[in-house]
Structures are given as structure tokens and as C-alpha cells.
């Protein structure tokens, strides 16, 4: 592979890195020019949109089986002839997804960040770097790169969570997040080392080959390795029982960061989990399927039940996002890649993630708007919102309906696909538990709806949410509705993005 090809294949990552560095540089140059710093989020946004553009442009290159990205094969770790990254449908999907997350988070965060911290350039740069980590994680094809990307994402996330250093909750959340994260990563990397010991390679496809052709005597090592890897990835996805950090970190973090963590970090975890399980351990499907099915049931149920008692909307949405991760996991558990059917489980995972992206970021944008105005994210801050800002209230209603899974919203499409996969695989218990949980979840989403539509506003007067938030909320809501009313392109995108992964399975 020539340098030129190498650069082309890495273009989205390079553009994103460049954008982050430019923002950092401008922050230094404009150290004292507070007025000019207003441009920083715009610069970041342009960088993100450019990333999205080049991602779309290089999409055709990945047609077929996908391309390995490597400058000098043969010199990688352990003498493997294997690259670190791949450009395929899955990685492209998550690159685009990361760019969308970044764009919506940037649009939502300008006013919030301006009001709370003078160090804004670093904030935007860190968000961009965290997005970069997602793109790397989704493209990583060997254990070392997976670990590095996940650590990269974690480190930027810790910093962002504790960004409001004078805020006790922010600091507390960051510390909890860090302690949990460090432990989870350590366990995961230990699991990876077991896999390496058992197979002699860190390449995901190589592990699968080694496990089928090599000695069966080492197979027992796979089980502890699998569990340990699940600890690290489950931590990112907030699967129960690795979720305990999430409510505190979500509540304490600056709200735009919460929005980012609840979607971006989870998406990265799912991308890696899918690739890891399907590429490295396809022969052990029965084993990880059983474990994940149990985790999915516990995650959905616990997330929903605990959410019922929350009075703070950020915390409520944290538990909701735990439950949502459980629903998404159903798609992975019930995957049936060979089936000539509309739902392969895997496309359900991507569709659900996409719907969840627009829905949750939209919902958080509304929370940010309310917080900007009232200074609070408690439930009663939403009282009478429909009188004070009918646009936000109606949009929030759409987002909440999507989180419940009521049509015509993207959340409905996602649930249709993951529950459909479960029914197709005759895993009725999973589908029924998922459905029962959807009904339970109505009750706490209703708590927000009740405040917005039935409650009396504490302060009179309307308020304006500002252009950035308006665009973020409007775009999110439009896409949430489109994902149900004009679902076809989204379904195709998701199905094609996982087809390579499914075919290798």
C-alpha cells in the first residue's frame, strides 16, 4: 500500500485530527480574545462536517470485503502480517455516526459551555478527539488497537466528565468514572492477553483461525478471556453489572458531555463488541449468546426499574440509556446473519443505534435548553414547558415517544428490528421481556411529559432556545420521524454496513 492510498483510507480520521488541532491552536492564539472564541465551535463543526463528507466520499472504496489499512505489513506487533485498522461497511457506518454525534453535540453545547467555563477551545478539541477515538475503535481489527482506541476514548471522556472543576458533582462523577474505567480496562486487557496466549496472535480474524485449526487444549482459556473482554466493553456500553458509574458520571458531567457519553461511547462499545465477537469468536457463539442474553434481560429490567425513581432528568436519562443498551443487545444476541430475512439482528443493532443517536441527542438538546434557562435539570424545571416553549415541548414529546418505541418514530423501527430478530430466532422470552420493559419505561418518560404538558410553569414567559439548539433539536426530530416514515434508506444503510461482518461469520 502506498502512502497515498494509506492517506486516502485514513482521510476521515486525519480530517478530524486536523480539526481538533486547529481548534486547540486557535484557542492559544485567541487566548485573550473572548469574542473571537465564539467562532471555535463553528470551526469544530466545519471540521466535523468535512469528516462526514470525506467519509461519504470514500464509502465506495469499502465495497466488497473491505480494505485493511496498513502502511507496512509485516512489521506490526508480533510479526503478524496483519494491519491494525480496516475500512469496511461497519467502520464507515460508525465514522459517519461519530461525525453526526459530534455535530449534534457541538450544536447543542455552545451556549452551555460559554456560560460555564473559560477553557472552551480545549473542550471542543477534547470532544473532537473523543469522536476520533470512536472512529478508531470501530475500525480496529486487532486486540491491541481495540485496547488503545478504547483507552483513548476513556481518557478523553474522563477529562470531559470532570470538565467543570469547581462543580462537586462533575468532579465526583469523573473520579468514579475513572476508577471504574481503569479497573474495567485492566480486566479487559488481561482478557486480551489470555486470548493472545491461547492463539499466538492479536489479529481478530487470526484468532478465529487459530481457534479452529489449532489445538483444542487451549479453548478453555477463551471463556475467562470472553468474560473479561465483556467487562471492558460492557463498561463502555453500560451493561449491568458494569453500569454503576453511569448515573453519577451522567448527572455530574456537563450536559453536552452526558449526551456524548450516552450515545457516542455506547456506539463505540457496540462496534467493538460486534466485531470482536463475530470476527474473533464466531465458534463460541453459543457461549457468548447465552451470557449476553442474560445480561440483556438484567440490563433492560434494572435500568428501567431504577429509572422510575429518578427526579433529575439527566439521571433519569442515564438509567434510560442503560435500559436502551439492553434492548440493543437483543439484536446481537438474536443475530441470524445467514437468514434471508429483513432482520438479521445485526442490522437491528445499527438501526437501533442510529435511531437512538438522533433521539437521545435530541432529548439532551432539549434538556440543555431548559438548563440554560432555568439552571436546573430537575423534573420540575420542565413544568409547563409547552407554554414557555411549545417547539421544545413537542420535540421532546417526539423524542420520548421514540425512546418508548411508539410509531411513527425511529425508536419504533429499531425495536421492530431487534424484537423481530428475537422472534425469528424463537427467543420469545427476550422479546417479551423487552416488550414488558418498554411498557414499564412509559411511566418514567411520562413523568417528563406530565411536567411539560400538565404542569404549571414556575416562571412565566416564553424563552428562546437559540439557533444552535434549534437546529440540533429540529434536525434530530426530523430524522427521528423520517426513520419511521421513510425508513427504507436507513434500513439499507444498516443492512449493507453489517453485510461484510455477517458474511464472514
Amino acid at each position: 500500500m502506498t502512502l497515498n492510498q494509506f492517506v486516502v483510507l485514513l482521510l476521515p480520521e486525519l480530517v478530524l485530527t486536523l480539526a481538533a488541532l486547529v481548534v486547540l491552536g486557535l484557542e492559544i492564539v485567541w487566548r485573550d480574545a473572548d469574542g473571537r472564541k465564539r467562532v471555535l465551535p463553528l470551526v469544530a463543526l466545519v471540521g466535523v462536517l468535512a469528516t462526514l463528507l470525506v467519509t461519504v466520499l470514500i464509502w465506495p472504496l469499502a465495497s466488497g470485503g473491505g480494505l485493511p489499512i496498513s502502511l507496512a505489513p509485516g512489521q506490526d506487533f508480533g510479526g503478524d502480517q496483519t494491519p491494525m485498522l480496516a475500512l469496511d461497511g461497519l467502520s464507515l457506518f460508525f465514522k459517519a455516526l461519530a461525525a453526526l454525534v459530534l455535530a449534534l453535540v457541538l450544536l447543542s453545547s455552545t451556549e452551555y459551555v460559554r456560560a460555564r467555563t473559560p477553557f472552551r477551545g480545549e473542550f471542543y478539541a477534547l470532544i473532537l478527539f473523543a469522536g476520533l477515538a470512536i472512529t478508531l475503535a470501530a475500525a480496529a481489527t486487532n486486540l491491541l488497537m481495540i485496547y488503545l482506541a478504547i483507552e483513548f476514548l476513556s481518557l478523553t471522556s474522563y477529562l470531559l466528565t470532570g470538565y467543570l472543576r469547581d462543580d462537586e458533582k462533575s468532579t465526583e462523577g469523573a473520579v468514579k468514572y475513572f476508577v471504574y474505567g481503569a479497573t474495567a480496562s485492566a480486566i479487559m486487557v488481561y482478557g486480551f492477553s489470555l486470548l493472545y496466549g491461547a492463539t499466538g496472535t492479536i489479529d481478530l480474524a487470526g484468532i478465529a483461525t487459530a481457534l479452529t485449526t489449532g489445538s483444542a487444549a487451549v479453548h478453555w482459556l477463551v471463556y475467562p478471556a470472553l468474560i473479561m473482554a465483556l467487562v471492558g466493553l460492557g463498561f463502555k456500553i453500560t451493561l449491568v453489572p458494569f453500569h454503576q458509574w453511569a448515573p453519577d458520571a451522567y448527572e455530574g458531567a456537563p450536559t453536552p458531555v452526558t449526551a456524548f457519553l450516552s450515545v457516542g461511547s455506547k456506539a463505540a462499545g457496540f462496534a467493538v463488541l460486534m466485531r470482536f465477537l463475530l470476527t474473533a469468536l464466531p465458534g463460541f457463539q453459543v457461549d457468548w449468546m447465552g451470557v449476553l442474553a442474560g445480561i440483556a434481560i438484567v440490563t433492560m429490567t434494572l435500568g428501567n426499574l431504577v429509572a422510575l425513581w429518578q427526579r433529575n432528568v439527566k439521571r433519569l436519562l442515564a438509567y434510560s440509556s442503560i435500559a436502551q443498551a439492553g434492548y440493543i443487545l437483543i439484536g446481537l444476541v438474536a443475530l441470524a446473519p445467514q437468514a434471508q430475512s429483513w432482520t438479521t439482528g445485526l442490522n437491528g443493532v445499527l438501526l437501533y443505534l442510529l435511531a437512538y443517536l438522533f433521539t437521545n441527542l435530541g432529548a439532551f438538546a432539549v434538556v440543555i435548553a431548559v438548563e440554560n434557562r432555568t439552571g436546573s435539570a430537575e423534573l420540575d424545571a420542565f413544568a409547563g414547558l409547552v407554554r414557555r416553549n411549545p417547539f421544545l415541548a413537542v420535540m421532546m414529546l417526539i423524542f420520548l415517544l421514540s425512546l418508548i418505541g411508539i410509531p411513527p418514530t425511529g425508536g419504533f423501527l429499531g425495536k421492530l428490528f431487534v424484537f423481530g430478530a428475537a422472534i425469528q430466532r424463537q427467543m420469545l422470552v427476550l422479546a417479551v421481556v423487552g416488550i414488558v420493559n418498554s411498557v414499564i419505561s412509559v411511566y418514567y418518560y411520562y413523568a417528563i411529559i406530565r411536567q411539560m404538558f400538565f404542569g404549571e410553569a414556575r416562571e412565566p414567559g416564553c424563552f428562546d432556545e437559540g439557533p444552535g439548539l434549534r437546529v440540533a433539536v429540529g434536525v434530530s426530530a426530523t430524522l427521528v420521524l423520517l426513520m419511521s416514515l421513510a425508513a427504507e434508506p436507513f434500513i439499507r444503510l444498516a443492512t449493507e454496513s453489517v453485510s461484510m461482518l455477517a458474511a464472514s461469520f
Partner: protein
Amino acid sequence: MNFPILTLITFIPLLGSVVVALMPGGREREMKLLAVLFSVPSLVLSIIAWVAYAGTPGGMQFTEEAAWIPTLNAAYRLGVDGISLPLVFLTALLTTLSLFYSSYTIKKRVKEFFALFLLLEVGMMGVFVALDLVLFYVFWEVGLVPMFLLIGIWGQPQDRPQYSAIKFFLYTLVGSVAMLLAFIAIYMTTGTWNMLEIPALGPLANSPGLAVAAFWAIFIAFAIKVPSWPFHTWLPDAHTAAPTAGSVVLAGVLLKLGGYGMIRILLPFFPDLFRQFAPWIGVLALVSMIYGALVSMAQWDLKRLIAYSSVSHMGFFMLGLVAAAATLDASNPVLTSRAIALNGAVLQMFNHGIITGGLFFLVGVIYERTHTRDLKVFGGLSAKMPVYYGVMLMTALASLGLPGLAGFISEFLVFRGAFAIIPIYAIIGVLAIVLGAAYILWKIIQNVFLGEFSEERWGKIYDEHHWPFSLDMARFELITLAPLLFFMLLVGVYPAPVLNAINATATALLAGL
């Protein structure tokens, strides 16, 4: 491409809803006027469709089909037949009347009310015209949220509107998500969402256990909506709390969604299972009829009384449906009896919509004047409000099944069919008619209109200053009720135009099972 009459019927209200929602605040008169005007085209078009249909009996007409989600095999398929047309018309009529009535009585949060009400019409209408299970499900849920908000926001504070609203929402949702799983399971075996093709493909024929589970999942979803005992407990709360127009549409149309689903989906998809379980469903119907009537008789809140009477009257519908489904014998005279029972069931839905819709408007009439629905405080109103008395008497008598008025025809048909097929059930069921007469005559007519009029009691409840219209029925109230009274009479004395279309479709449907 034919003239897309059903698309227009369904989506013109959506346009209206958007227009009303985008209007600048403060222009309440214009909003009300526009909302009413936007509901009229659907009404006119539904009448045209019904008239055009009546000439050519049988299956689906005015069908429309367009690709929607090809990967999912879900399409935009619409169509109506003799069973859906009366309900489409009923929806359009009651919506227009409700909007007209509400334009005089709704004072707070006007824009939201009218926008939501039009959105509600979209959902209800869509359910009756959709021929694709995914589309059906989408419309089914679209109507849920507006109704939920209508109850919660415009309900009277003393009736716990928020509690009633979320109860309504959760009950319906529990049923509908179970139904969704069943739909997906059906799709897995048939490969189509087309409601007309599925019966011939024998959904879930290879897995009897799953078929039974799917049958009950769908049944419960519809039974909650109908509502059948023991799934009815959301109904008295929701009806009582809802604003007048909300109650009218709730009783008049939303309950029919469940009944329609049973005829359109449950019966043709699973005729054998329906036959097998008919004795049990028949018991549910009987309990609904008699228990509903008894509880109704025990109420002292006029609105709650009528709410429970809905449980009883929709039980008649279920009895007719059970009679039609209790055997698959398609030879005469059994087929004739089954068709008569099904005709009665469909007509009962239509009549119940007209009559109970009317009754809820009439509760609104007295409630707007006195702000109470307590049956103990009225009495002797026949002298004070003679027109109101007359209108109420006619509607009430139609409700209890007096010959010459609509209720009689459908109840007669139901029992005529049921006596031939499930005589024991029919004999027990007649009791409900007797009880119906008792609570209507004793509780409503006697307590409100007859007896001594007490000036003192009346002075306490009648709020002259807050009621700008005449004491007896105001003109807008009469205009609202006139079409309903007309249909009570028309169906009562000459039901043929309504029944022809129903009968053609019902016979074809039963013969094809």
C-alpha cells in the same frame, strides 16, 4: 391511479392539525373555525365513498397501494369495505361535531386542543382504512398520544385527569405491544403484512402453540380497547375525566377500533382458534353486558353511568361477533344466521357511536350549565328544559333499544343471530336489555327530568353568569345533536341503506373463512 379518496379522508385532518398548530397565538376564533373546516372534507368524502360503495357490494374498494418500506415488505395499502365504511363515516361525523361543539365550550389552550383533536382523527381514520399490518399499527399508536393529552390537559380537576390519562395510555400500550409481537410472528410465517392476503396463507399454521399465544395477544389488545370485562377498568376513569368532545370520540370511535380489529384481523386470521375459544369469549361478552349494566345502575355520576353502559353495549357487539364465529358452517341457514349476527355486531358499533356520542354531548349540556354530574342534585328538569328533555329522552330510548330507533335494530339482529347459533348465551344476554332499560329510565330519566323541581337546589348549581347561552338547549347544541338524532331515526325505521353494504361484506367474509 384512481382518485386517492382514502388518503384525502385520512390526511386532510393532519394538514389541518399542522395549520392550526402553526397559527399565531391569540387568534382563537380563526383557529376554531379552521379546525372545523378542515374536518369537513373528510366527512363529505366519507359520505361520497359510502354512497359510491353501496352500489357494488362485496370486497375492498377505493384501494390504494404504494411502496413504503420495500425491505420490510411493508406497503402503504388502503381500502374500505362495508364493514369499515360505516366506521369511517362515524369517525368523520363525530369529529366534525365534536370540533364544532368544542369551538363553543373550550376556553383554555385552544390551539393545542384543536390541533390535537385533528391529529386524533388521523390516527382513528387510518386504523379503519389501513390494509397493511405495519401501517395499521402505526395509525393505532398515532391516535394514542393526542387522546392521552386531551384527557390529561382538558379533564376536570376533580376527576383526576392525569391519572386517568396515563391509565388509558398504559392499558392501550400493554395491549398494542403484545399485538405487535404477534404481528411480527405472523409475518415470519407468511412473509407479508397485507391483511387481505394473510388469511389464505394460514398464519402460524405450523406452530399451534405460538398461534394460540398470538391469538390471545391480539385478542387482549382489542379487548382492552372495546373494552371487554375484565379489561375495562381504564374506561370509566378516562370517560369521566375527558372533556365532553373527548368522551364523545372515546366512546364513539376509539372503542370501535378494538371491535373493528376483531372483525378485520382476529376473525379472518384465526377462524379456527376463534371458533375454538368462542365459548370463552362469549362468556366475556355476557359478563361485560350484564356486569356493565349492573355497575352502570349503581352509579350516581351521570358520565360514569354512561361509561359503564358502553361496557354493556359493546358486550352486545361481542356477543354478535361470537355468534358469527362460533361455527364455521358456511351452509344456509347457518350462514344466514351468522351473517345476521355479524351485521348486528357491526351495526351495533355504528349505533353505539351515534347514540353514546349523543349521550355524552347531552351530559356536556347539563355539565356546562351546572358543573356537576351528580344525579342526586337534579330533578324535575323536564319543565325547565323541555327541549333538552325531549332530545335526551329520544337518545336514551334509542340506547335502551326501543323499536323504531337505531339501538333496537342492531340488538335485534345480534339476538336473532345468537339465538340460532348460541341460544344459551342469547337467553342469558337478554337480561342485559332489561337492566339497560332499568338504569336508563330510572337513573337518567327519572332522576334528572321527573320528580319535583327544587328552585333552591337548582339555584345552587346553575351558574347563570358563566353560561352565556339560553337555559334550555342552545342553538349550537341542537345543531350538534341534530345529525345524531337523524341517524337514530333513520337506522331505526329504515336501516337498509346502512345495512346493505355491511351485509354484503359480512356475508362474503364469513363465507370465505
